[in-house]
């Protein structure tokens, strides 16, 4: 089958090389969701206009997300015979300057450039496996993908027996990237073992974690890598049908996938008799309708069947044996499939050379929150947390103190500064009371309240609970009531122990992963930040000065220069003052919106926030 692929591949490589050695400049704009949100499409138009105005011939290409979301819009320029230069924080106006300065006047605008190289910018702590093509290739071009050894894994797999493929996947040690870290090879094998006239492969791209967008970026930036992995899985377990279960909120990813599927069909990489191997594989997209619990395998299957997405009661059959329409169904995450094609193509030794013994390969995180360089990162498993936050993320934003990092979303937990030397992999994070999860990583500083964070995640789980288990439905609600009380200064002695007890009962009494992990954010914050809960309960104090009911806004008359900005901005008309008269806040009227705090110029910093019994016992 590799022979059949060869002509396609050669053509793609020669196209790619032509592009690299093109005698006109190539301009690439990062236009995934994050780029578009920062104005990438406007930048593209501006560049197009300027090129026309100056009558310059150049190729303008759209690429996916390289992960440096903090510096969007990113523009790369390759002039013939020159290295690739990456420019950051480009606006439409800057892009016009850049085109004129560099393409006409030979001024490479070093002031705007962040790196000059042919490979991935940034730092060498990152290893690109899942995201290797993101930001490099045009996701709408299958030839771009083919030129990066795309579909080589599939072609090779089709020359192997299903068992050989599964042995390779097992040997590679690949664990599912959807959060649980279940060994992929074992799951594949149990699908293979069941005899059935029809089997299915489903890709879980529901990505329900409210702070995560890794799967979306892979689908937007390199859709073929997932398609190829799914086709290999289909051949390995004996399935001829695959379904991509994508959140309906991801319109760009869905558009990109539809194009990619068509392109693959046209080249006989999907459809009947793939590459002349006799293997048929068809791929459809199902749009998830916005229920977090549908990330759970039995709920996901029910929702495809047109039913309410309620996890099946225990004891329930394994989806790999009895899934969609009662047939054996293989469910893996987007990143799991994206790893597979490369494992088959590059071999298990290569894969095992990255990461740790128990968790080979890389982890992809959406690094966000109070961090200098937020964005998508891909690191070898086992890297220390501290390296991610300080070396890759550039440390806590605004020079503030690091307080905690949250991983695993609503199922995970918060880790304190003492845990910064923790190696990041499935097992270590679970042991520390958090979770790898799907890959959200949120950094928090001393202005983030841990009670509030726990409350936030619990509220999310409660809203998303399907309601069939009483502990999950009613228990989380009770816990939330207690947390709300604590954050409003109505907490009582004993509340913390009660929360722990209830959390444990909910974990024991729930039938699916949602209920079984919903208390984790609360339990982990109690474990590491108990004194913060105690401050709320005993002193009616929010040390992070975040809980509205426990803080008071005042103006320091000595610092106030009576500029009147806060007075104008206050939506509640709570501020009084006049020219040359220091302003004051009427606590009765103050809505604690915080606008005055941001309005007051830094050089005065006259607005004060106080908290706690002693300070505001007025």
């Amino acid at each position, binding site marked *: 089958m590799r022979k059949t692929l060869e002509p396609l591949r050669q053509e793609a490589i020669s196209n790619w090389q032509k592009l690299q050695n093109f005698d006109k400049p190539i301009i690439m704009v990062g236009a*995934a*969701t*994050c780029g*578009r*949100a*920062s104005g990438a499409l406007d930048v593209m138009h501006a560049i197009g206009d300027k090129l026309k105005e100056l009558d310059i011939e150049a190729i303008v290409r759209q690429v996916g997300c390289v992960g440096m*979301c*903090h510096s*969007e819009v990113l523009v790369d320029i390759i002039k013939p015979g020159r290295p690739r230069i990456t420019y950051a924080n480009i606006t439409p106006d800057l892009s016009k300057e850049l085109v004129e300065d560099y393409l006409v006047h030979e001024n490479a605008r070093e002031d705007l450039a962040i790196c000059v190289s042919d490979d991935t910018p940034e730092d060498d702590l990152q290893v690109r496996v899942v995201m290797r093509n993101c930001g490099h290739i045009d996701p709408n071009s299958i030839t771009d993908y083919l030129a990066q050894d795309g579909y080589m894994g599939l072609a090779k797999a089709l020359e192997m027996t299903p068992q050989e493929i599964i042995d390779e996947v097992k040997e590679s040690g690949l664990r599912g990237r959807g959060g649980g870290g279940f060994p992929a090879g074992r799951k594949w094998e149990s699908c293979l073992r069941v005899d059935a006239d029809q089997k299915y492969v489903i890709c879980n791209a529901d990505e329900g*974690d*409210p*702070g*995560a*967008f890794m799967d*979306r*970026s892979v689908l937007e930036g390199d859709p073929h890598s997932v398609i190829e992995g799914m086709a290999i899985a289909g051949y390995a377990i004996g399935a001829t049908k695959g379904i991509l279960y994508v959140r*309906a*909120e*991801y*319109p760009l990813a869905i558009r990109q996938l539809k194009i990619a599927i068509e392109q693959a069909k046209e080249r006989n990489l999907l459809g009947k008799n793939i590459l002349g191997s006799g293997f048929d594989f068809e791929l459809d997209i*199902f*749009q998830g*309708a*916005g*229920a977090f619990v549908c990330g759970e395998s039995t709920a996901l299957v029910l*929702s*495809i*069947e*047109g*039913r*309410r*997405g309620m996890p099946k009661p225990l004891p329930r059959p394994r989806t790999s044996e009895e899934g969609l329409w009662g047939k054996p169904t293989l469910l893996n995450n987007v990143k799991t499939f994206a790893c597979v094609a490369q494992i088959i193509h590059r071999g298990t030794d290569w894969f095992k050379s990255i990461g740790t013994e128990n968790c080979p390969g890389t982890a992809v995180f*959406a690094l*966000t*929150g*109070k961090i200098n360089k*937020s*964005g998508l990162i891909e690191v070898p498993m086992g890297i220390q947390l501290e390296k991610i936050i300080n070396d890759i993320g550039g440390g806590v934003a605004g020079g503030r103190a690091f307080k905690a990092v*949250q991983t695993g*979303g609503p199922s995970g937990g918060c880790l304190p500064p003492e845990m910064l030397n923790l190696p990041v992999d499935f097992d270590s994070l679970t042991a520390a009371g958090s979770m790898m999860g799907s890959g*959200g990583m*949120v950094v*928090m500083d001393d202005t*983030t309240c841990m009670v509030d*964070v726990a409350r*936030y*995640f619990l509220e*999310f789980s409660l809203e998303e609970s*399907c309601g069939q288990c009483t502990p999950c439905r009613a228990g989380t609600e009770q816990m939330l009531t207690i947390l709300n009380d604590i954050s409003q200064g109505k907490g009582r002695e004993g509340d913390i122990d009660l929360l722990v007890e209830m959390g444990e009962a909910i974990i024991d009494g729930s039938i699916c992963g949602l209920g079984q992990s919903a208390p984790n954010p609360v339990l982990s914050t109690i474990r590491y930040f108990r004194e913060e809960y105690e401050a709320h309960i005993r002193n009616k104090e929010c040390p992070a000065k975040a809980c509205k009911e426990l803080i008071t806004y005042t103006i320091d008359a000595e610092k106030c220069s009576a500029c009147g900005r806060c007075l104008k*901005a206050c*939506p509640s008309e709570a501020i009084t003052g006049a020219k040359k008269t220091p302003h004051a806040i009427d606590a009765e009227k103050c809505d604690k*919106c*915080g*606008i005055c705090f*941001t*309005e007051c110029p830094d050089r005065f910093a006259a607005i004060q926030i106080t908290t706690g019994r002693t300070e505001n016992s007025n």
Partner: protein
Amino acid sequence: MEKEDMKFQEIFSQYNGEREELIPILQDTQAIYGYLPEQAMRAIARFMRIPQSQVYGVATFFGQFYFSRRGKHAIKVCLGTACHVKGAGRLMEAFEREMGIGCGCITDDYSFSLERVNCVGACAIAPVVMVGEDVYGHVESKRVKEVLDIYAKDS
């Protein structure tokens, strides 16, 4: 009403009435109307030969579906984790104050509705607000009016 029927027929003509088509049909219907009108729910039940209660049962389970008319401009404040940590809760309050409606509501003239979303994939520029397909980053409370004004002209 007849014209409405035509629209339903157009959607139904692409389906066979199999159970697994229910969610895609609901999605197509919402794509046309912006919500799921009662008539449409009746027509879907008839087309699929299932009780209306089952159509509602499925539709109400999923967060994507609406059962009342939406505003012309849907303001969606991201309350995902990164945005929450950067003060999206207060931002939502600011929108509620400025628009005079609560989250999940529509202005009287149907020009705006206010909703929450979870992570739109632009955490690096949190807090984030979406209006239709437009994304705004670093939205501080004091920029609320500015964002609304852009769309107020066109309603």
